[in-house]
């Protein structure tokens, strides 16, 4: 008898955790699928399936544009930071030199830095950048100034994280693999390309996904450095979906927007579950 109770107890605990973690998201999905009348009747299961909220988002509020902006910033930022970090991670994990721990410690310290500490300086730099940029380029490309600037600031805030995680992953690669190549006289660049790249591909991919999620979710800089409808990223876009009148908050559309930006993340996370877990752990302690 005791064994059965124990089993039920364990299942019960697991179900509580699952409901706790998933329910808010489930509820958002449900709300987003309901028409305007049904949204305002609280219930646990959808009473109707109505794509109205999604259609509204596609044609109004510039929503598709904000998704493209976020994708652009995420892809540019992550490609640059991963490339730079990959080489740095090799230096920090495979070669011993004076000041290596110090360097790693500084990287860790910067990754915990409050963004607001640099915001005023960043903003001044941004105004200078804009002036400089406007002098060179014509009106047509001015629209992406803010997005380029976001790429720059995000790269900075991503690099400490990507360096740290990749360094941890690279430390796990056995020495022997590299030694044979060193004996053969291969250059470090060649070793990194031919030997490490195939082994590190899954780790690089995981790190890239995590960095991408961080960029996708960023709010403070996005709010500060984007000013017009055309250059907003998704976080600011959602924050600004509001009804015309105070008490007419379009909850259905807000939930639909939330679902659209979240579903890809949830799918990726579920597919890469194990990898992301080890990536998160590597980001903070030895994996």
């Amino acid at each position, binding site marked *: 008898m005791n064994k059965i109770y124990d089993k039920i107890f364990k299942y019960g605990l697991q179900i509580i955790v699952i409901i706790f973690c998933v329910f808010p998201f489930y509820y958002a999905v449900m709300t987003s699928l309901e028409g305007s009348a049904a949204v305002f009747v609280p219930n646990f299961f959808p009473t109707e399936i109505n794509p109205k909220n999604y259609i509204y988002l596609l044609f109004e509020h510039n929503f598709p544009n904000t998704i493209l902006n976020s994708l652009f910033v995420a892809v540019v930022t992550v490609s640059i930071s991963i490339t730079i970090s990959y080489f740095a991670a090799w230096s920090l994990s495979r070669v011993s030199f004076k000041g290596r721990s110090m360097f790693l410690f500084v990287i860790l310290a910067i990754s915990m830095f409050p963004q607001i500490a640099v915001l*005023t300086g960043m903003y001044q730099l941004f105004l200078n950048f804009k002036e400089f940029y406007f002098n060179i380029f014509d009106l047509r490309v001015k629209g992406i100034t803010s997005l380029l600037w976001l790429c720059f600031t995000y790269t900075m805030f991503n690099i400490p994280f990507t360096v740290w995680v990749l360094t941890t992953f690279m430390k796990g690669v056995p020495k022997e693999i590299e030694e044979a190549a060193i004996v053969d006289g291969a250059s470090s660049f060649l070793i990194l390309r031919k030997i490490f790249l195939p082994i590190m591909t899954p780790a690089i991919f995981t790190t890239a996904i995590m960095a991408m999620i961080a960029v996708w979710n960023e709010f403070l800089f996005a709010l500060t450095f984007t000013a017009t409808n055309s250059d907003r990223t998704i*976080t600011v876009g959602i924050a600004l979906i509001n009804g015309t009148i105070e008490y007419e908050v379009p909850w259905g559309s807000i939930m639909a927007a939330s679902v659209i930006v979240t579903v890809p993340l949830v799918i990726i996370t579920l597919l890469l579950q194990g990898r992301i877990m080890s990536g998160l752990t590597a980001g903070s302690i030895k994996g």
Partner: protein
Amino acid sequence: MKSVSQIRKRTALIFLIPVTLVLLSSALYPLISTLYLSLTDAELENFLNPNYVGFINYIENYEGMWYGVLADSLFWNSVRNTLVFSIFSVSLEVILGISFALIMLIENKLKWFVRAAVLIPWAIPTIVSARMFEWMLQDQFGIFNYMLIGMGILEQGKAWTTDPQTSMIVIIIIDAWKTSPFVAILVYAGLKALPNEVLEAGKVDGTNGITQFYYIIFPLILPAIAVAIVFRGLDALRVFDLIYLINAGSKDIMSMTVYARREMFEYSHFGFGAAASTMLTLIIGVIAVIFIQRTRLHKLDEME
């Protein structure tokens, strides 16, 4: 001819140049210019060439009255709010995180689902979690009030997010929902790294299991918990988006970052805002140093 290791060392240093340049240009430079701006009268009009004014943004006595960040009760209020938020949310996250980690260890058919579910809140953007909870807690149509009324606990829906008495609690709960998975994953990794016999000992059911956990497993996963506290603590101290999104206008729950940003971008007091953010950096820096000293995180690299 140079030895292989010398060549490698040189290459390693060359590979570190881009990272160093990025960090110098994008972290150190804005940090120093923020520090400098905090000593100027920078406003919107003269933002690109402000005048040096000394420490008056921090504190100034003018005709017997005190001015400046340090004399602003709203600033100290935001410091207090930030500390309250950090202490309560991190404590809650550690408790939930450890519980989740232990539940993640249960081996049965639901194992995969538990591990998958735990990652979902982590992947969801803060803005989305804020909006989801706001909607669930909405006073007229929210499911939470609906349930409470159904159970007879409330007679009328309550505006949980806008009521100053409950909005801080709501914010702490949303933060805990979003980030206890992170703590859980760290603790889970710590638990997985333990030898099997230790875990088996902890699996003994009943009250005995709890004492065993407390005396045997807990001390062993303490390093993982410490790391989680450091990371979450430093993250909580710079909280911005949740508080800004849930109740931007309220002075009652304003955090330090919200205060500093408001001075800069709503009132265009860039000098004053820079002073506030410098104070914030100092406060977080002091707390970080104490934390890191205590947990010996700076020895991480040697702990191989």
